[in-house]
């Protein structure tokens, strides 16, 4: 295992690599005070790096699992499986940090408000989990006001899932279900281009012999690996999700499904709210099933709406509470002053946290002010 797989910040990683630490084993016998001196960081920071390193080493060596009944797993095994799960980086290091390294495969996330700023800047941190057998499903709901960057995050995820294994990515493909018509090919091309540039930069930085692993990817290839479906009604949306089962068994390399947005067509034509809730939870169940069977991540983007309670207005995810509860992870994106923020509203495994992010020409990145902070240190 190499240093760049460690879930630490990009600047720390940079310092480690420039000080000559490239493999985990090189960190095994050094004391925190020595490391702090060498990297010119505080001792507590060095201690933290060593803790992360020894933790990763531990999970690497104990791979021996012994299941008693076929298919059954002990919680211990599941923990290791989960640690070996890959994550999809969000391209913003801060955002990845709060997401525990990026968006997990097998879970569904709803992106809704401004909490996206936590997406980490280091491109390679966005890894999707690929472990098989783990029962935790990545189902993520992300919500936010118009213009906060939901679609940008969706496109970024669809691009980042394709970062090859060599670069700590998943090397998978993406399904993008567009219900709003906000997916712009030119924008996806821009983000793909920036992603490839970042990878080659990283390559040069990490391995001097960059001839050997020169990036052969082109932005066109990345666009080709995004299966794009444009949906114009809710019946089409349900039909497509029913059909995905067949599609996925023919395209086993799909690692993420992005739905942008899951809400749009359900906000009209429904007078019977109970009916709508049933249709929606049926759809969520199917998606969760797909995430589990094909071990992929499902990212649902959601609109937000104002909720009128006791003479005050509150921001809430559209389509009601029962729908939001079905998602294992919920992220809210919001404005804080002039910065975009992402906030983890609900997650079984992550503590609630928030991080700033920004939408740049190259895609989702750490917010510029937090970059300044890192530079100041």
């Amino acid at each position: 295992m190499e240093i760049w797989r460690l879930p630490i910040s990009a600047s720390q990683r940079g310092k480690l690599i420039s000080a000559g630490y490239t493999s985990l084993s090189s960190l095994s016998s050094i004391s925190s005070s020595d490391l702090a001196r060498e990297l010119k960081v505080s001792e507590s920071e060095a201690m933290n790096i060593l803790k992360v390193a020894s933790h990763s080493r531990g999970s690497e060596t104990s791979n021996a699992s012994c299941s008693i009944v076929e298919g059954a797993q002990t919680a211990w095994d599941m923990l290791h499986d989960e640690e070996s799960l890959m994550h999809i980086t969000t391209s913003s290091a801060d955002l990845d940090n709060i997401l525990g390294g990026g968006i997990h495969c097998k879970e569904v996330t709803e992106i809704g408000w401004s909490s996206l700023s936590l997406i980490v800047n280091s491109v390679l941190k966005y890894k999707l989990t690929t472990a098989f057998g783990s029962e935790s499903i990545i189902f993520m709901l992300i919500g936010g006001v118009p213009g906060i960057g939901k679609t940008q995050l969706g496109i970024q995820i669809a691009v980042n899932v394709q970062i090859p294994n060599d670069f700590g990515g998943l090397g998978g493909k993406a399904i993008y279900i567009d219900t709003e018509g906000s997916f712009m090919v030119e924008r996806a091309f821009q983000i793909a281009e920036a992603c490839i540039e970042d990878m080659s930069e990283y390559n040069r930085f990490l391995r001097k012999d960059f001839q050997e692993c020169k990036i052969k990817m082109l932005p066109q290839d990345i666009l080709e690996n995004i299966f794009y479906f444009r949906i114009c009604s809710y019946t089409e949306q349900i039909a497509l999700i029913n059909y995905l089962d067949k599609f996925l068994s023919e395209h086993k390399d799909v690692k993420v499904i992005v739905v942008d947005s899951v809400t749009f067509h359900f906000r009209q034509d429904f007078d019977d709210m109970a009916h709508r809730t049933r249709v929606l939870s049926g759809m969520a169940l199917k998606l969760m099933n797909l995430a589990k069977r094909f071990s992929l991540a499902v990212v649902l983007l959601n609109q937000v709406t104002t909720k009128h309670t006791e003479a005050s207005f509150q921001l809430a995810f559209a389509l009601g509470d029962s729908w939001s509860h079905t998602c294992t992870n919920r992220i809210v994106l919001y404005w804080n002053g002039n910065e975009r923020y992402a906030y983890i509203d609900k997650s079984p495994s992550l503590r609630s946290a928030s991080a700033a992010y920004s939408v740049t020409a190259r895609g989702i990145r750490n917010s510029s002010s937090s970059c300044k902070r890192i530079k100041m240190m």
Partner: protein
Amino acid sequence: MTPQSLLQLTSQKCTTGCPILDRLLYGGIPCDSITEIVAESGSGKTQICLQLSLHAQLPVSHGGLAASSLYLHTEFPFPFRRLHQLCLSFRSSNAHHFPVNDNPCDRIFVQSVHTADHLLEIMSKTDPFIENSKNQVPVRLIVIDSIAALFRSDFDNNPVELKRRSSLFFKISSKLKALAKRFNLAVLVTNQVVDLVGPNEGINGLRIGNLVCLHTSGRRVCPALGLAWANCVNSRLFLSRNEEVIREENEKSNGQSCDFVKKKMRKLYVVFAPHLPESSCEFEITREGLFGVER
């Protein structure tokens, strides 16, 4: 159901007729997408709409869509005289694209709309209308000027009515998006503003888009129709209008006197758009149309 190939799916743009504005908008108003222009009255919303419906007729090689347009207007009267004026300058500057006795106004279909239900009814007739007009110049642009006028009087301010209203928003928007996708149309919608009172940013303290606050004529405003409608459009542009007082010193024979000259400052902002960064551009409205100004 098969996925669309993104490599073949290039988004076409319709030129605004001004290279500076086109640069800001990365080529113009995108097809298969809804673009909204928000501004107070007299800022130039209708001017852009008229200008776009003329420039949509330019050949694709010149940034147009080589197409006719459907102009739905809800505010009366329709500015025929201004359209005619713009048409004359449009023809004289693009004479080589059109036959001598050709009138570009013939390819702008104008329809008045009175209520939201009327709009839905018209849109259901639009499908066959566009299909049948295929052999002539196809319709590739729909303008709705303005959407807000349909909703600002007919609805009461109570939960039931507001729910009905937002359901209508989503119905109209999804119908427009379906049309835009089916015929690869550009859709341009204008919206009015409401004044903002109180210390909060946006209505209910809710900020939408790149700008903390929209300012025009020295007042703080925000787009009409609220959050629900903001969810229905793909891109939102904002036009501001401010008066700047410039002091001009004139030397006259009997000593010095100061003249205060009022100058209009118009600006276009990108509030949000999936393909555009936060940016803005000054523009001016002349007899020939609406043009960006580079400083």
